[in-house]
């Protein structure tokens, strides 16, 4: 059956083709060139005026303010799951744990920078406590630019870190960074 149908439809097509071949000789030709010119002119115009880079947005969630009235204490977290990042201009000072913080410094470079640090810390926490247990605390320093802020949030998105919090920096931490900077100057 299928073969028959194929044969039937094939035959008339051939006939049509040969009929068509004679037609174009007599048909008047329209010069399409000006139309193409116009077409491409308009095309160029629209291509150039289109806003190609539509702005994108990055969602941010900040913890609510806790006042004395609220009678809620800030959530307690285990220091063993925490890494604290003190973000300065193009530089990140970080320490793990809460007691006796030991400061280290890194930057935003893709291979050796903060991403590597975070992934290492996450592997460490995951080995001890299980998946998605690491908590990142981000504290922005006063000398940071807005760019650094976006970069660090971006880093969270890149490594798919869901648990992070944006917290105000404490005077103790500022001191810590100052001290660290001084010792670095001495050694270098």
């Amino acid at each position, binding site marked *: 059956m299928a073969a028959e149908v194929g044969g039937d439809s094939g035959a008339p097509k051939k006939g049509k083709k040969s009929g068509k*071949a*004679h037609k*174009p*000789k007599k048909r008047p*030709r329209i*010069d*399409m*060139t000006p*139309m*193409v010119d116009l*077409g*491409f002119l*308009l*095309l160029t115009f*629209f*291509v150039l*005026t*289109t*806003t190609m*880079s*539509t*702005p*994108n*947005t*990055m*969602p*941010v*969630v*900040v*913890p*609510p*303010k806790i006042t004395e009235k609220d009678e809620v204490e800030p959530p307690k977290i285990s220091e063993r799951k925490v890494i604290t990042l003190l973000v300065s201009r193009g530089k990140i000072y970080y320490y793990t744990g809460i007691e006796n913080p030991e400061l280290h410094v890194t930057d935003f470079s*893709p291979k050796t920078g903060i991403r590597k640090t975070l992934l290492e810390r996450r592997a460490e926490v995951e080995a001890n406590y299980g998946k998605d247990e690491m908590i990142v605390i981000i504290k*922005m*320093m*006063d*000398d*940071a*630019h*807005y*760019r*650094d*802020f*976006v*970069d660090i*949030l*971006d880093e969270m*998105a*890149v*490594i798919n870190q869901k648990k992070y919090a*944006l917290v*105000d920096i404490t005077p103790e931490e500022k001191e810590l960074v100052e001290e660290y900077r001084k010792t670095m100057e001495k050694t270098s």
Partner: protein
Amino acid sequence: MAKFKAKKQNIAIDMTPMVDLAFLLITFFMLTVKFRAPESLEVHVPSSIADTPLPAQDIMVISVAPDSSGGGGRVFFGVDSKHTRLAILEKIQERYGYVFDDREKQLFSVLPEIGVAFEQLKAYLNLSEAERKAFDKHTSIPIDSTNNQLGQWILFARYSNPKIRIAIRSDEKTPYPVIARIIETLKDQKVHRFNLITTLEAQPKS
């Protein structure tokens, strides 16, 4: 076989498919084109891997422009719809007791971004366009803790359109304390969820 016969005459390229293509593309671009909105502020936003497009409706944008003197940032405020802008102006009239005439209201409803203190608003609306542009280069909505008018703007905008979402569009070189103040202001208004406007950057391979 029939094709080769055409060679006898001079060579003519059939332009029809080309025209088809050109007009198809024109149609596409005409339908998708969205003309760049006139922006009073030049802000160089940082790039990020975030790929959620900015919603076109129900959005208020807090813009932070660089300061010509280098320090700090200048804060501007804008909402998307004319309707919301007029409602906000009504609120300003109620709260501060200024009276705006129809011409001023009309002008306010078409300005995409406003960056002046409430006290200066009436005078600002009476400036010529060129004067307004010059004015925009060194003004800001006050955000100090003693006179935080940005909070008022946000409050009015949320009153006028409860569905409104908040986006921050800041220059990448803005010092962080300015951003911290804005976030603080948002927190005071019980806004804990907002967006940062960025341009797209390729996602790094992991």
